[in-house]
Every structure is written in C-alpha cells, then in structure tokens.
C-alpha cells in the first residue's frame, strides 16, 4: 500500500511537469469542444488525434489522449443542459432534468450540479484505479493463454447479456468485428486470409479507421437526418452563488451522488460503459427518491445521479484496460490503440516493465479530472457558444478532420474510402439497433484473442477443455456463461417469485 502511494505521488509529479501539464490543458480544451459538438464524440475525437501523439513522449501522448476523454465527459453535459442536445450519448439522461432546470432560469445551477457530480464520479473511479490496478495486475500475471481467452469471453458475453440490445444482433456485431480483424496476413501461418486476391485487403482493417467511420460519419448522418434545432436557454454563466447552492444541494442529495458513483464505477469495469450507467443511475435514483414526482421537471438528483455515473464509468473503464489489456469502452479501446502505437502492450506486464509510464498515466487521471472541473466551471459559456456556429460550417470541417485522422493512421489512401464505407454501416447499424461498441472491441482484441485461443489449443493438443481448466479459467468461464444467459435466467427467477410469492 505504502509503495503504491509513493508510486502515485511520483506519477502525479510526472503529470505536473510543465510540458505534460500544458498537454493536459490542451487535451481538456479540445475534449470539451469534442464533447460539445454532436457528431464528434470521445472515441473518434481521440482517434483523430492519435497521429499527433506519435511525435511525443509516450507519457505525454497518453496524457493528451486521456485528457481529451475527460474533457469530452465533462463537455457532453454542457449542451444537454443549455440546448437540450446531448453532445454525447452518456449525457442523454442529463437532458431529462438538466434542461428543465435551465429553462426555469437556473442554467448556472444545473451546470454546477453536473460538473461537481462529474468530479465526484471521477474521484471514486480514480481512487479505484490507483489502488486496485496494481492488485489486479499482480493477479493477472498468473494468467496463461487459456485464462486470457476466458476473460475475453467474459467481456463479450457481458455485451450480450447485459447490453440490453437484441442478443442475436449483438452476437452478429461481435462476430463481424472478429472477422474484420482476421482480414489480411495470418500471424501464425503467414497465409493471406479473406483477401480474395485483392492487394488492398492485405493490409487489413485498422480499428481506428473503423471508429472514425462508425462513430464519426455515422453520427453525422444521424444528426443531419434529424435536423439540428437549437433552443437556447439564456446564458450558461456560472456564478459563485450558483456554486454555493450547488455544493449545498449535492450534500443534501448525497444518496443520489453515492448511488451514481457506485453504479458508474461498477458499470465501467465491464464493457458497456458510461451510457447505460447513466440511464441506470437515473432510474434507480428516481425509484428510491422521496420526491420522485419532481423528476423530469428539474430535480437536482436527476442531474446528480446520471452525471456522476457517466464519469465514474468513464474513469473506471481505464482499470481493465491498463491491467488486463481489455478496454471497458470504445474510447478506452482507442486510447489502448494509441498505447500500442508506442509499442506498449497494456496488460499485467506493463506494470512491471513500464511502471513509470503506468503511474504517470494514473497521476494524470487525478490531475486531468481536477483541472477539468475548473476549466468547465470557468468557461462553460464559451464552450456553449461553439454550438452557435452554424452546422453547415461545422459539419464539413468534421468530415475533413475525420479524413485526416483516417489517412494519418497508416498513411494509406484506401483508409479514407473505408472510412466512408464504415460511416454508412455505422448509420445503418445505429438505425437498426445493432450495437457498435462490441464490433469495435472485437476488431481491437481480434489478434490477441485469436493467438490466445490458438496457444491454449496447442498446449492442450486440440482439446477445448483447456479453456475451462481450474483454478482461474473455470470460474471466469462459468460467470461468462451465466452472464450470457442472464436475460433468460432473470426471467425464470422472476416467474418463480411470482408463483411462490403471493400464491
């Protein structure tokens, strides 16, 4: 414990170095802008800027990427509250109560509540990251290929069982992601797979290009289809009076805050991430609240719970990424992709071999979320003004920047064509309710999953029982199977209860 603490202090001092501090500030400002703009989300905001980090030190690069994420988490709620337009999917739940409160003329109060809740969620998430990450990483050192594969099965079964979408569509999404990752040269045999004689397909599909297309262009198609309507409530300025009120209100609604933080951190650990966490926290806060009739008309708890959950989930998603190499959200997957470009493979060995880097990252999570709070409190109206620029100007600029990001990943022209294709796919999938996050995660983890599976099978001589071997893989697989069938299991339990209960 003491060792971890001194490591953490070292990490914070690394992230306080002038250059890294400046990088974090730039990242936060860019992140808030990304968060404010609909059609430009955390995942593709980070993806577009990955090429810029190549010229930096790894620590500075990861600080930039992570800061964009923190900024986007904070920024998404600004437009939800002021314009009723969620800048990010995880701030949809904030529009339910944030916008009504702003409409009553208390925009500043709503913003203060949202930012402080974000900060509280972040603190719990970062505390978990700082003190649990070394423990989990130490445990994960004992993992062999079978165990790694079982953790991945757990990850993807969580999408199916707890994602809340049609299980068939989720499965198709996962399979397609893995298939895309197979295209190109096979790492074990050197054979060309799924290229059908085309030279262009030999290079395979890069997941960053997929993220930019699916989340960037796809989102733009959705936005122009809906047509962007601005119904601005006045101001957005935060006064000290608002801050005092906000702090008092948060102390009164401590239950909603705690609920949000805990749900957020829990949901962040397994894939699914910030968006379902915010909805879940909103639902729970409404259920257990004394004044649940006020929800939807500007209740404080209706802002506090989803916002703290969203940020808690966003931060704790870093925990599985850094310790196991399995990202908890698409944005974390992109950040992990950034790490791989530096030649750093996230996972338990990272703690051993690059301790300075890992602790620098964790330190920057503290610093980034802390400065982020002040940045958004001070400049919320300026960021909100970004949305007043007409969409006909913003839209082509986003497409342009997306094209730069897609090209610069590998310096390949074909990637820009893929980006447009992924954009159309992203639009269709969003419309037809195919989840995109599992597809992206499967594309990222494809190579790792396949080599783990093959190694495990080689060790056992082709016997798939090896994937269920005790002591570690078996319980993980068991949990994965339970989670996979969770919707039907919980249905059976409910039926039983009804039969036994009142009868």
């Amino acid at each position, binding site marked *: 414990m003491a060792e971890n603490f001194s490591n953490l202090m070292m990490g914070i001092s690394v992230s306080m170095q002038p250059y890294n501090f400046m990088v974090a500030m730039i990242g936060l400002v860019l992140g808030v802008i990304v968060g404010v703009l609909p059609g430009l989300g955390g995942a593709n905001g980070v993806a577009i800027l990955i*090429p*810029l980090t*190549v*010229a930096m030190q790894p620590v500075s690069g990861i600080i930039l990427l992570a800061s964009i994420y923190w900024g986007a988490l904070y920024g998404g709620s600004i437009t939800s509250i002021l314009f009723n337009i969620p800048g990010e999917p995880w701030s949809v739940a904030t529009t339910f109560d944030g916008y009504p409160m702003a409409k009553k003329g208390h925009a500043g109060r709503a913003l203060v509540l949202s930012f402080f809740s974000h900060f509280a969620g972040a603190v719990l998430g970062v505390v978990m990251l700082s003190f649990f990450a070394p423990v989990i990483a130490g445990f994960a050192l004992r993992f062999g290929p079978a165990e790694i594969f079982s953790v991945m099965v757990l990850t993807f079964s969580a999408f199916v069982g707890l994602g809340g979408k049609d299980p*068939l*569509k989720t*499965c*198709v999404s996962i*399979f*397609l992601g*893995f*298939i895309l990752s*197979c295209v190109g040269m*096979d790492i*074990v*045999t050197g*054979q060309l*797979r*799924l290229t*059908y004689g085309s030279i262009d397909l030999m290079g395979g599909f890069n997941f960053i290009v997929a993220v930019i297309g699916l989340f960037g*262009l796809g989102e*733009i*198609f959705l936005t*122009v*289809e*809906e*047509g962007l309507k601005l119904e601005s409530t006045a101001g957005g300025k935060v006064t000290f009076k608002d801050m005092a009120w906000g702090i008092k209100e948060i102390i009164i609604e401590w239950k909603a805050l705690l609920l949000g933080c805990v749900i957020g951190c829990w949901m962040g650990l397994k894939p699914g991430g910030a968006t379902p966490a915010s909805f879940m926290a909103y639902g729970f806060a409404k259920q257990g609240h004394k004044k649940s009739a006020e929800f939807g008309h500007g209740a404080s708890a209706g802002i506090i719970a989803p916002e703290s959950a969203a940020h808690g989930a966003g931060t704790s998603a870093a925990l599985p990424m850094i310790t196991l190499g399995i990202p908890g959200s698409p944005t974390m997957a992109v950040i992990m992709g950034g790490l791989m470009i530096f030649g750093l493979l996230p996972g338990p060995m990272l703690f051993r071999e690059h301790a300075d880097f890992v602790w620098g990252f964790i330190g920057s999570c503290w610093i980034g979320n802390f400065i982020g709070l002040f940045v958004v409190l001070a400049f919320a109206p300026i960021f909100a003004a970004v949305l007043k620029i*007409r*969409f*006909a*100007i913003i*839209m*082509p*600029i986003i*497409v*342009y*920047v997306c*094209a*730069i990001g897609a*090209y*610069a990943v590998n*310096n390949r*022209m074909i990637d*820009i*064509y893929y980006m*447009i294709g992924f*954009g*159309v796919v992203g*639009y*269709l999938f969003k*419309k*037809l309710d195919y989840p995109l996050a599992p597809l992206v995660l499967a594309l990222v983890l494809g190579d790792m999953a*396949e080599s783990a*599976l*093959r190694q495990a*099978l*080689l060790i056992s001589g*082709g016997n798939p029982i090896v994937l269920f071997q005790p002591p570690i893989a078996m319980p993980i697989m068991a949990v994965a199977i339970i989670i996979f069938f969770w919707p039907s299991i919980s249905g059976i339990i409910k039926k039983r209860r009804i039969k036994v209960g009142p009868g």
Partner: protein
Amino acid sequence: MRKANLWVAVFLFVIGAIVMYDSVRLGFRWQPGFGPGAGYLPFYLSLGVLVCTGIFIVKQIRQLSKVGIVGDKRLIREGGLKPILWVLIPSTVMVILVYIWGLHLAAAIYLVFYMREVGKIGWLETALVGVLFPIGMYVVFDRLFLIPLPGGILGTYIKIPF
C-alpha cells in the same frame, strides 16, 4: 424498418457465407503436428454469423407475414434522405478528388461547396473558413507534426515553399 432489418440481415448472411468459403479453402481443421489451421477461427466466426442471421431472418419473415409492413416506422425519416445524400455524395466526391488535388485542396473545395450550396452562407464567411482552415490544418499536420498528408498528383509538381 422491418424490411430494412430483413435486407441487412440477408446481406450479413451472404457475407458470412463468403467468409466461410474462404476459411474452408484455408483449412479450418486441426492439422496434425501443426495445430489449428489459418481458417480455424474465421470458420467458426462465419458459422456464428450464419446461424445468428439465419435465425433472425426466419423470425423476421414470420413477423412480416403475420403483421405486414402496416404501421411500421420508416428506416429514414420522411425528408431525411435528402440531407443525408447532401453529406454523403459531396464527401465521396471529395475523397475521390483527394487523389488528384491532395487532401487540403480537395477539402477546401468541399468546404466552400457545402457552405455555399447547403448552408447558404455568405461569400465572405465561406471564403474565410474555406481558405484559413485548410491552411491551419496544413501547418499543424504537415509542418509542425511532420505527418505527410496526401498531396495528390498535383502535390508532386507544386511544392509549397514555407
């Protein structure tokens, strides 16, 4: 929406079949003394896609024959297709133009076109954004961070001096 659901599922089913074809060619069985063949994982993945989309297609056809398409939501909102095409077609044209004129010049043309034609934005504003933004991007990416972006055929002849 129900029809679109069906067609997308059929399309994915076909993709699954194409992938399976190639993985059978690669060899998906256990090769003695070597381990799983290159097509091992793709085979089971495509099998998964075929099974999932297959079940989905059957379900969807049953539902369609029972309730039909009456009262169904449209895939694209009424009047929604036009703005989408206004984004999709110019973006595609821009991407093709990159090959000839390079990314920044193609993007500048694209910016000006979209702002004038779709946004109906004044010439001054259009010109300012259309010229300054690509220059800014060029300076940041090509000059400051030394990431060479595509110059196109034109770019190989004209060198920008600064």
